[in-house]
């Protein structure tokens, strides 16, 4: 055990040293902010579960049925999340970590290394699921006025529950690592995981859950649940957890402890089995992971063909970076799920507009359609901000260790930044315009609103992209393994805040004049001279703001990148 603790010590000491040395004000602020966001999210989850459970409890006959069905479904969701997160963590910890060659060169038996990594992987993959499952469990405790038995059972059971899921993931990884290279397996599981999540998300949305708010639909739902078999599979760890919680809530101590013991005994056996299997399999998989790189499978003859570049018309440096960015993005499989995610969110975004029950609204449809269209400008701009945060903000950091190439290239900081700007600006502008036009068509808005939306987006997009590039240049992270995560830094936070302010201000400047024009049009009244002046002033102010948000950040970014040469 001493060796296992020694193996874990670098991780613990690194964390300790990071806390001790990373107390810069900026970092502290970011951590504080994310802690606050996390806490608010946690409290929000608790409030939602509490309200739902209270509501269920008041439903006669079916209340408890619904509450426990929710619990069973949530446990299955948590278990699936744990398995998924366990897969990715196990692949990293056991096969891809940079310290593995060092660790395996030490005079420590490989089973001890395995045990240390198992502990680390279990902790890393479970802590977040535990943290965010607590609001659910606590709300059951509060609503059902549970006693100490419930909380003790929860505490005793959540640990084997997580360990079982992680160990199952490790077992799966152990089995496949000697066949599939760990790097490819990680990409594959990530892509598959996200795809499954998206499918679930889309199918859930297409079910139109808002219809359950309709009393007739809700009655059907109740009948559905009543007819549903409540018995869960007795061989599933989720069933043991479910049964022990239910027993603990009803005060059945014996049953609650029996199911907890069942989980612990299974967990113990599983860990023993995994450690036993790891003996012959782990090193085999690890050797494969360390020596996977070689020539790519496929058709080398095709790769050797030199196709004429469709971007030949671009100036050399521009073409160089455009091609580099596109190829790097397309060849990095870890980036693909984000594209799927983006595509799915856009589909849902458009779908939400297509099912808006405008005809049932108590206002005039025209008024509502145009109001939504106006709000939609803000929403689309926020979508643009989020996409820019993911793709434009890390555009400088993404150069990573290869930033020396940019620095030593015969290219000024300004040219380099403008190239980056246009690489991202053009597709993002197209995306946002497409989004706004499609939603406006679905809303059947007036030509005035359509024109205004398109023009507003045309003016907002350069500012949003320019701000992302500026903050990404001011707060680069060249050492990160995943530059996309740099958006969670202080720079990312400032970017999101500034962008939100910028969009809100432009929309606010347009809101008054648009309302006046719109209402005037509806009443058939013409505008007075003072109204025209106000209109011109307001729109001009919006345009100036957009122009400044575009030019000033780019200037700051160019100056900052020039200074980065000094780093």
């Amino acid at each position, binding site marked *: 055990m001493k060796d296992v603790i020694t193996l874990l010590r670098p991780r613990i000491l690194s964390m300790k040293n990071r806390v001790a040395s990373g107390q810069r004000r900026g970092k502290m602020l970011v951590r504080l902010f994310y802690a606050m966001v996390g806490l608010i999210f946690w409290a929000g989850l608790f409030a939602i579960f509490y309200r739902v459970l209270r509501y269920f409890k008041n439903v006669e006959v079916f209340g408890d049925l619904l509450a426990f069905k929710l619990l069973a479904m949530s446990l299955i969701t948590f278990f699936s999340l744990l398995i998924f997160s366990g897969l990715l963590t196990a692949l990293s910890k056991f096969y891809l970590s940079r310290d593995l060659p060092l660790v395996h060169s030490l005079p420590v038996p490989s089973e001890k290394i395995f045990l240390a990594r198992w502990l680390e992987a279990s902790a890393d993959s479970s802590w977040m699921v535990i943290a965010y499952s607590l609001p659910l469990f606590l709300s059951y405790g509060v609503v059902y006025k549970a006693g100490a038995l419930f909380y003790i059972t929860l505490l005793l059971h959540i640990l084997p529950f997580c360990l079982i899921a992680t160990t199952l993931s490790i077992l799966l990884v152990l089995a496949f690592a000697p066949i599939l290279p760990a790097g490819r397996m990680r990409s594959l599981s990530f892509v598959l995981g996200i795809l499954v999540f998206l499918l679930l998300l889309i199918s859930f949305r297409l079910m139109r859950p808002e219809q359950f708010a309709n009393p007739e639909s809700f009655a059907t739902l109740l009948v559905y649940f009543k007819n549903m078999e409540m018995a869960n599979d007795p061989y599933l760890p989720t069933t043991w957890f479910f049964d022990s919680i239910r027993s603990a809530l009803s005060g059945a101590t014996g049953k609650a402890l029996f199911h907890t013991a069942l989980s612990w005994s299974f967990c113990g056996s599983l860990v023993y089995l995994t450690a036993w299997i790891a003996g012959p399999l782990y090193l085999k998989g690890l050797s494969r992971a360390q020596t996977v790189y070689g020539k*790519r499978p496929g058709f080398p003859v095709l790769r050797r063909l030199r196709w004429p570049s469709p971007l030949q018309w671009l100036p050399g440096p521009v073409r160089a970076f455009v*091609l*580099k960015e596109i190829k*790097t993005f397309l060849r990095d499989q870890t980036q693909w799920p984000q594209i799927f995610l983006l595509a799915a969110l856009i589909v849902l975004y458009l779908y939400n507009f297509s099912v808006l029950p405008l005809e049932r609204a108590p206002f005039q449809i025209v008024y509502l359609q145009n109001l939504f269209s106006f709000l939609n400008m803000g929403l689309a701009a926020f979508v643009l901000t989020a996409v820019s945060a993911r793709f434009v903000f890390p555009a400088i950091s993404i150069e990573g260790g290869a930033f*020396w190439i940019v620095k*030593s*290239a*015969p*290219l000024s900081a300004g040219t380099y930044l403008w190239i980056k700007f246009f690489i991202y600006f053009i597709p993002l502008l197209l995306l946002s315009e497409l989004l706004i036009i499609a939603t406006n068509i679905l809303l059947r808005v007036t030509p005035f609103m359509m024109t205004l939306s398109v023009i507003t987006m045309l003016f907002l997009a350069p500012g949003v992209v320019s701000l992302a590039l500026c903050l990404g240049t001011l707060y680069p992270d060249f050492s990160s393994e995943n530059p996309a995560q740099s958006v969670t830094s202080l720079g990312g936070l400032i970017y999101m805040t500034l962008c939100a302010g910028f969009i809100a201000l432009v929309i606010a400047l347009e809101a008054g004049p648009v309302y006046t024009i719109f209402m005037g049009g509806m009443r058939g009244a013409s505008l007075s001279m003072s109204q025209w002046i106000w209109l011109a002033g307001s729109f001009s102010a919006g345009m100036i703001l957009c122009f400044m948000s575009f030019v000033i950040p780019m200037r700051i970014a160019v100056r900052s990148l020039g200074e980065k040469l000094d780093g």
Partner: protein
Amino acid sequence: MIKVIELKNLSKLYGSLRAVHELNLTVAEGEIFGFIGPNGAGKTTTIRMMGGVILPTQGEIYIDGISMAANPVEAKKRIGFIPDRPFLYEKLTGMEFLKFTADLFHVEKALFEKNAEVILRMFSLLDWADELIESYSHGMKQRLIIGAAILHEPRVIIVDEPMVGLDPAGIKLVKDLFRRLARGGTTLFLSTHSLEVAEDLCRRIGIIHRGSLIATGNLSELRQLARVQESDLEAVFLKLTEEDVPS
């Protein structure tokens, strides 16, 4: 003598740390100049300032008569820069990286097509030209960087630790290449820890210690300076850079 590299009072401060102090140096056309010094002496800092990768705190750098401060783009066009660590765009293939470099340096299509294959063949990378760089070994990446640096036929090649990660065949190949380039008029400035490489390749050697250039000359001039006779570069180097032992 045509001065291709000129460093005038070049200094670099990192906070209060004086990494390079008032360096004055000229390197002539077709010369291979070796830059040696102990760890932390300021070699890499000097090399990076010359490549335009970092800015000097004070002083001037002229490449082929062009000021790096006043016209960095034109100065860099004349340089082939080879860093000590081969960080590259891992998701590009070797051939794509060469094309990327060619585009950045405005290399004509015909010249690229002529040079790229020759370079890849010379560095035994032709079979790997269409494989992703992430699948290359350290030595292959280093060879690719050297290849990319000579692709645009620069006037000056600045190299930081040229032989790191190369096998004996690779080292011989690079040495022969550098000699051939120098004969053709290319100026080479190389920083190295390997005294054997410096002795073997360089006509003149500069020794940097604690940020200052303490000696410059060919081996016999350095011997005189160190007051050691018939010694190799190692003995000269150790003598010149030896620390004062406190009594």
